């Protein structure tokens, strides 16, 4: 019974994946990709990884879909888009990809015994940190350096997006996200939903210490609400040169680095927390990170500056 349900799920995923590649229109491909994100979120739930399911639901279905659909909107429709090259090449590449897939499948079918796991190592440190959500413990204590570097990647990504602005527009506002035709319904949604969404975002961040949830999930939800407001034309994207905005981008990573450096003096070294104070420090870092993630994700979707800065 249970395996039959999983088979159905896999079948649906493969349908969405194949259609993502084969759809002629690029917008159809993006819709298929959004469907795939929803399905994957259910798969993560099935694999009992609730934290990941939350991330996939917020990022996979929401944020990535928005970026891709917005790109579609700015490209002219052309017939040739979905056209794949000749059949002979398709077969050759298909065989090559099938071989790669078969190799990966072989790895899955011959797993090492016993299965390797770092869970005991994490369990040994759960007490010291004082949080009950193992994933948050890994993200902010056990492998905190990874998380810090990932924040740096996010900031670098944003700088990369901003750097694509023509010199003339540097520091100006990104192109507006508003819908092509104004809609009263959309305005209504953008007035009603954000207060609720912000509450849920804060809840996810706060809940992340002891239950599934956390900075990414909460931050993404906050970013989504901001984007909704921008799409309904209730607020333009801010000028990228605004100092307050740049401070918000930097506050999370900066606090994280400061806490890391403080570890040299107050604990065992970089990114180690003084015993007994781990939980409050981690929660403070999480709050700052969530703010930064929300702003960074929102600005990455908004894109590079497309207008001269106001005088």
């Amino acid at each position, binding site marked *: 019974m249970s395996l039959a349900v999983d088979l159905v799920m896999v079948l649906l995923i493969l349908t969405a994946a194949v259609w993502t590649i084969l759809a002629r229109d690029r917008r159809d491909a993006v819709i298929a990709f959004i469907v795939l994100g929803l399905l994957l979120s259910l798969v993560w739930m099935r694999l009992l990884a609730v934290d990941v399911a939350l991330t996939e639901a917020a990022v996979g279905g929401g944020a990535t879909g928005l970026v891709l659909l917005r790109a579609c909107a700015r490209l002219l*429709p052309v017939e040739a888009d979905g056209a794949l090259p000749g059949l002979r090449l398709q077969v050759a590449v298909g065989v090559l990809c099938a071989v790669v897939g078969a190799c990966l499948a072989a790895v899955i079918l011959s797993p090492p015994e016993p299965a390797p796991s770092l869970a005991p190592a994490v369990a040994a440190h759960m007490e010291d940190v004082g949080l009950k959500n193992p994933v948050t413990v890994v993200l902010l204590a056990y492998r905190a350096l990874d998380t810090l570097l990932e924040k740096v990647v996010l900031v670098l990504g944003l700088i990369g997006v901003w750097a694509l602005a023509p010199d003339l527009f540097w520091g100006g506002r990104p192109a507006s996200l508003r819908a092509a*035709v104004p*809609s009263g*319904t*959309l305005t*209504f*949604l953008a007035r*009603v*939903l954000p207060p*609720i969404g912000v509450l849920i975002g804060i809840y996810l961040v706060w809940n992340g210490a002891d239950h599934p949830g956390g900075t990414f999930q909460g931050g993404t939800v906050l970013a989504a609400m901001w984007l909704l407001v921008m799409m309904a034309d209730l607020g333009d994207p801010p000028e990228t040169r605004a100092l307050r905005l740049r401070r918000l981008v930097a506050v999370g990573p900066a606090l994280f680095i400061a806490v890391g450096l403080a570890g040299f003096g107050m604990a065992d070294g970089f990114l180690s927390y003084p015993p007994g104070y781990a939980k409050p420090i981690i929660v403070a870092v999480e709050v700052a990170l969530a703010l930064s993630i929300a702003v960074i994700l929102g600005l990455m979707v908004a894109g590079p500056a497309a207008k001269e800065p106001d005088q």
Partner: protein
Amino acid sequence: MSLLLDLFTIVAVSGGLFFFLAGTVGLLRFPDTLTRLHALTKADNLGLGLIVLGLLPQCPDIVSALKLVAIWALVQLGGATASQLIAEFARRGGGER
């Protein structure tokens, strides 16, 4: 009492499943975009609504029950807005080339 509540859950959730069936059949069988949209909202409103209603007696605590109601309310809001937007989109011919 517990038996009665269980019975209520089974009836309500089955009702929800029926409306999901109705939504899917409508989405697949109805002739044009706007009628299909009508079928879709049945799943949003009544499908999820009845399932949430049926699950309420089974909730372990009051917070879960409140979350269930919030989920339904959010889907109402989101689903109704999405339907409206999709309908406007289809009417303007955004669907066709």
